[in-house]
């Protein structure tokens, strides 16, 4: 460092005139960087009030070629898929299945034989007619070519007999309780003349459907362009073109909405942003119940959580209304201790969550918790990319501390959480966690068959979603009976029993169901229809129920 002093001296010797040059140069350089392209901005076309309606929709991820084997996510992938393909039935605003491709139908008394008549004049995007043969082909194709969602759904279909172009009869091997909903309102019909020679559907990218929209272009990971099917059998859809852009980042998505680069975002708005957006004259916010659940998942296999008293104590310690107010700012519904969303017909009225710290302490005392586990630290796993769940976990840890349960929140990347809670997504492979914040998508709320999968103790056959390895003998019997009951009254009674059992034995704590909150620009299109629990991205937003 001997040179240091010398250098300083040298620098001071520099002619003063030159420092002005430096002083000017630096700001100029910055200005150049910052303003590189202000003058280059391409002129934006003026809005044309009379022209066709083009909606720009932002989704977070690519959804493959958007056919039944390549779409990726349950939401919004399945929703977009059903804009391109049709189902025999369609869930209405209240999630009641209504005939769609089907004009009329009837079933025998046992619900084992169903006959259907299709609408006339339904065509595929390539102009070919959609016939009963296509329906038969689709259901058989799904049975033979494995797909996580469709194959299971059509498993009970024994045979389909085609009478003529429009009429066909479906025979079931066993009664299916929600047959009209799943498979009929869930499984898309594919064109037999295009798929007949397909052997590897996972790598088949054709997306010719019969739905209100057709895919005209797809730039992977960037955009899709959907164009209205003007020949649609229920009339021309309300929006002429849906331009889908993929924006992965949440902040970028809502900035794009604010400046008008997109008209609607598929992702739900964070509660704290609602106020800001509601105040904007250009943006409308539509909120309603969501059927996605948020649970405190408990490892029922691991001591001391194998004791139902400890699990009930956990439930009693948590104030759900407080969670909904604090975390969701009121945009949500507190959990039904029996799991099913209160907005659904199957909900057992009168089941109420009770917060009672004194009772929670008594329960723990009875279970001998303090003696064996008073000093143990339990882990509560959460996915680090979900800020709402992180906050939820923090509050729960505090609540449990109040009853003497020492819980540490551990945030991990989502794949790692999955691998601990649900290794390889296969419940028979065991589990390695104490507690976790978890959630199931809307279909696991709507379909009673999947509810059974959460609870049945036989993990290889029935209980494929039973990630807490919960076991209750009486629950198993109810789940099995529910799976073959078609009588609506008996179904309701069984569902009601099931919820009561869940509330008493607490396989998990149902914390809340966040509302679906959607922000859009009404000046472009204002016909969005909120389908209860499932949001506004659905066929009914573009085509009315006939």
């Amino acid at each position, binding site marked *: 460092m001997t040179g240091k002093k010398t250098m300083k001296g040298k620098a001071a010797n520099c002619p003063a005139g030159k*420092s002005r040059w430096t002083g000017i140069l*630096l700001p100029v350089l910055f200005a150049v960087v910052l303003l590189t392209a202000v003058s*280059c901005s*391409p002129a934006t076309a003026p809005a044309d009030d009379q022209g066709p309606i083009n909606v720009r929709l932002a989704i977070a991820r690519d959804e493959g070629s958007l056919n039944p084997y390549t779409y990726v996510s349950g939401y919004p992938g399945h929703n977009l898929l059903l804009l391109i393909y049709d189902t025999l039935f369609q869930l209405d605003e209240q999630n009641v299945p209504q005939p769609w491709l089907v004009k009329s139908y009837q079933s025998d008394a046992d619900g084992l034989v169903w006959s259907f008549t299709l609408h006339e004049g339904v065509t595929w995007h390539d102009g070919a007619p959609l016939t009963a043969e296509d329906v038969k082909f689709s259901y058989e194709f799904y049975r033979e070519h494995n797909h*996580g969602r469709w194959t299971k759904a059509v498993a009970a279909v024994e045979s389909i007999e085609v009478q003529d172009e429009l009429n066909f009869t479906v025979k079931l091997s066993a009664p299916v309780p929600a047959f009209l909903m799943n498979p009929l309102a869930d499984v898309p019909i594919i064109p037999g003349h295009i798929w007949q020679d397909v052997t590897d559907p996972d790598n088949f990218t054709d997306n010719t459907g019969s739905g209100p929209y057709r895919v005209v272009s797809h730039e992977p990971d960037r955009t899709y362009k959907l164009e209205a099917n003007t020949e649609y059998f229920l009339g021309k859809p309300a929006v002429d073109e849906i331009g889908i852009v993929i924006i992965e980042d949440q902040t970028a998505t809502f900035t794009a909405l604010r400046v008008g*680069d997109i008209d609607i975002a598929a992702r739900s708005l964070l509660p704290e942003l609602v106020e800001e957006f509601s105040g904007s004259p250009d943006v409308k916010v539509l909120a309603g119940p969501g059927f996605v659940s948020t649970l405190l998942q408990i490892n029922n296999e691991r001591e001391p959580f194998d004791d139902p008293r400890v699990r009930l104590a956990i439930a009693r310690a948590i104030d759900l209304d407080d969670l909904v107010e604090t975390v969701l700012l009121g945009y949500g519904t507190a959990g039904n201790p029996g799991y099913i969303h209160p907005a659904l017909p199957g909900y057992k009225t009168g089941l109420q969550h009770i917060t009672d710290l004194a009772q929670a302490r008594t329960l723990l005392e009875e279970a001998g918790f303090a003696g064996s586990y008073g000093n143990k630290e339990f882990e509560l796993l959460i996915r680090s990319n979900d800020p709402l769940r992180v906050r939820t976990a923090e509050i729960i840890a505090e609540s449990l501390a109040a009853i003497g349960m020492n819980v540490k929140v551990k945030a991990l990347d989502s794949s790692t959480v999955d691998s601990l809670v649900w290794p390889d997504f296969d419940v*028979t492979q065991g589990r390695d966690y104490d507690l976790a914040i978890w959630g199931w998508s809307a279909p696991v709320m709507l379909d009673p068959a999947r509810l059974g999968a959460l609870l049945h103790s036989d993990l290889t056959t029935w209980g494929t979603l039973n990630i807490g390895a919960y076991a209750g003998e009486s629950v198993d019997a109810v789940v099995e009976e529910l799976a073959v009951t078609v009588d609506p009254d008996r179904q309701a009674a069984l569902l009601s029993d099931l919820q009561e059992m869940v509330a008493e034995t607490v396989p998990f704590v149902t914390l809340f169901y966040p509302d679906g909150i959607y922000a859009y620009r009404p000046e472009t299109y204002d016909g969005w229809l909120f389908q209860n629990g499932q949001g506004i991205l659905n066929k009914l937003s573009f085509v009315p129920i006939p």
Partner: protein
Amino acid sequence: MMLQFWGSKLLQYILVLVFTLALNFSLPRMMPGSPMQLLAGEDVGLLSQQEREEIMARHGLDQPIWRQFTIYLGQLAKGDLGYSYRQRRPVGVIIGERLPWTLLLTGSALALSAFIGVICGTLAAWRRGRFSDLGTLSLFIFLDSMPSFWLGMILVALFGARLRWFPVFGAQSPFAGYTGWTAMVDVLYHLALPLTTLTLVTIAGLFLTMRYSTLDALGEQYITVARAKGMPEGHIVFRHVLRNAFLPVITVFMLSLGFVVGGATVVETVFAWPGLGRLMFEAVLQRDYPVLQATFMMVTVCVIAANLAADLLYPLADPRVRVEGRRF
């Protein structure tokens, strides 16, 4: 002697490459988590045991890991990078789409920050202790300490959302169908904010290196001699100081060049820029093994290539290291 030196150097690079290939292959598989959900779709929980095994077998994931590795090497030798689990498209094609965007963003940011960093670094050293030196020094240190996502978000909020000067996401206007000159202008227009962000956060390294090495060179005795001879100040700086001060900057620059293909995940995410960094990040989160392997390999190869290039360039810039066989 020379041949032997380069021979051992080459061997060294090949060893590094093979080692990193094995590491790139095994690390993702050692991470907790599984690509099962990507492979089977959203209703993965409803699959039977047999269906699961079928899916694993279809992607060769039922094989022992050493067998998977030899298959991978075999494919790699044929130039086959495999299929992405998520996109179900050849990884080579996906990278081909992403790479130009990444090179455009990170390459021009590096060039711009090197240009500005070198000029400002030289001037700051020359004006050491003056206001202009202290001003730029604190500005660049301030920028350096700023998280890039934060800077990016501020620029988006200000120049995108408020002033509406620039677009807030993407690399092109979607569905605009621009061609030729307009398409190029459109890209530049989208490039402005991410480029500015990335340039501002990378400038500091090059600026500081340049400033310190210039200061170092200015303190050398030959500069004193040159000044004593009455050599003009500009002549001293450009002829004698810069040539020597450049050497460490070349090292820093070449190292950064190697990382250019890795993209800038954070900036790409904030601006929804369709580059490789985002692809890699997504692949890590979702355990898309083929994409992970291929992108990691590209970064490895580029870092090695940049090192090699630095090794080759150095003797050109600095005659002192041209001594035969001398390690540098």
